[in-house]
């Protein structure tokens, strides 16, 4: 039997998608971004939440995915799916090469190094105009297609993005609930203890970094197809800040936190649009309130019930 903790978020996401589909193309676009960010944050959660390492540079891999898919599809006539997979492989290899030396660093130093990675790729996407068309951006990226059938409308794409986001969460959760996932959690808990139990820390961190990069790359590719246009700004510092807000708001290190955070951070500004110049203030105030009352993120709130249960067990 599937527990309610799994069914409830899936049902909520489906209902939300249904509401979005009924509310017109603007809502569909907002939700689409939310699901793309869900994929990005699920990967980031893998590295930051499960493994406890900081990365401020995941936007670099989203850029590789986004530009890779844009160039392969618009200029070389590739199908979106092969382009998505090939760019994921490229991102994975890039993560392997970058991660091998970088992941020797810890804490703030790792954060700085990965931040630099994001900035370097951002600069490249601006300066290498023959490849990326610089500030002009890359337009004419075809929409997603599956098995030769093009998902021409945003509505169809939204459903595809929902399925992909849920699939991404499924994979991430499956990886977490395993010997490998436990080893990552061990590293997050205490590197010294993990080592003393025979866990190869460097190797595990590197694999987690590569997995996070694969998610980021896929998110970048999906963004390019969903919007049909990309520019350097898309994969800039804003993306990093945005994804961090989502991760901490939703609940870092939890299964559903990335999706909850991605949806709220995407929808909230739109819901507050009526407040006009007060919009940003109201938005940030709400974010702060959520973090005060749910410091472990919104997904962490469900553990309140679980905690009560285990306490009762102990008394029994």
């Amino acid at each position: 039997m599937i527990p309610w903790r799994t069914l409830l978020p899936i049902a909520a996401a489906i209902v939300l998608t249904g509401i979005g589909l009924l509310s017109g193309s603007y809502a569909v676009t907002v939700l689409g971004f939310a699901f793309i960010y869900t994929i990005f944050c699920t990967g980031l959660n893998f590295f930051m939440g499960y493994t406890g390492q900081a990365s401020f540079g995941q936007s670099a891999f989203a850029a590789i995915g986004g530009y890779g898919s844009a160039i392969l599809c618009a200029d070389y006539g590739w199908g979106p799916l092969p382009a998505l997979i090939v760019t994921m492989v490229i991102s994975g290899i890039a993560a392997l090469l970058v991660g091998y030396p970088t992941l020797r660093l810890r804490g703030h130093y790792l954060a700085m190094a990965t931040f630099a990675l994001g900035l370097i790729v951002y600069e490249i996407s601006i300066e290498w105009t023959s490849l990326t068309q610089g500030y002009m951006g890359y337009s004419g990226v075809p929409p997603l297609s599956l098995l030769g059938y093009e998902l021409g409308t945003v509505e169809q794409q939204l459903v595809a993005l929902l399925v992909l986001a849920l699939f991404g969460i499924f994979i991430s959760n499956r990886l977490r609930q395993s010997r490998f996932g436990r080893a990552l959690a061990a590293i997050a808990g205490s590197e010294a203890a993990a080592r003393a139990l025979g866990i190869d820390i460097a190797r595990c961190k590197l694999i987690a970094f590569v997995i996070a990069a694969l998610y980021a790359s896929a998110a970048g590719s999906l963004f390019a197809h969903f919007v049909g246009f990309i520019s350097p700004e898309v994969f800039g510092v804003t993306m990093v800040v945005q994804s961090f807000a989502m991760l901490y708001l939703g609940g870092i290190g939890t299964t559903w936190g990335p999706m909850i955070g991605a949806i709220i951070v995407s929808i909230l500004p739109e819901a507050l649009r009526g407040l006009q110049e007060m919009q940003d203030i109201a938005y940030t105030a709400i974010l702060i309130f959520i973090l005060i009352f749910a410091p472990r993120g919104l997904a962490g709130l469900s553990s309140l019930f679980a905690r009560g249960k285990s306490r009762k067990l102990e008394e029994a």
Partner: protein
Amino acid sequence: MALLSVQNETKRFGGLLANDAISFDVKEGELLAVIGPNGAGKTTLFNVISGFFPPTTGSIHFDGRDITGASPHRVASSGLIRTYQLVQLFKQLTVLENVEIGSHRVTEGGVFSALLRPPSMRRQEEEVRATARELLRFVGLEKQADMPADSLPYGRQRLLEVARALAAKPRLLLLDEPAAGLNMQETAALAEVIRRIHAGGTTVILIEHDMSLVMQIAQRIVVLDFGRKIAEGTPDEIKAHPDVIAAYLGGTETLDA
């Protein structure tokens, strides 16, 4: 043949000689205690044996293989498992999951088997869980299995750390002051657990300050003082050893008129 053989091990930190030409052997199935005043170099010795520091000179052989300077996870993989003086639990995880992680060394599988979950993997997962529950019963924590590790009182956290180390099926278990910070009751419970681990065939090296605990359970004792081994023998021999008495009672401070 000795399971662990420490030969002329010296560890220098700049001008500080933490371990000075220490040699001793541990036989399979033995329970050895390492004692000595604060700063005698006991924890440094453990860190060198378990691969956390390479020795400056000398060698460490485990199970006939040279493990001098091998990385900690390699040493642990070969079956030499240590615990820490200050408990190092995975605090956010449940008590059960802490012990499950302990089984890393004796299980297999990476990313692909986690994704595909072949039947062998599922069987292994069931075994890991069953073993973890059994070990929690062994140390008396089975009722706390689903609680977060950091919600346990300190004494129980120590027992959890021991259970986690046992999940790795150690051939040699290094316990670094397991009774530190425990009250008498907890120490007695711990002594019982260590005795049963040893009775189960696991070789144990114990660093300990609690003399009554050491004298009760150790078969052989190595005494360190100022980084040097000053004595080695049975508890009775150690109790009567003049250098040990001097080290513990401060006999080095002679009064010259």
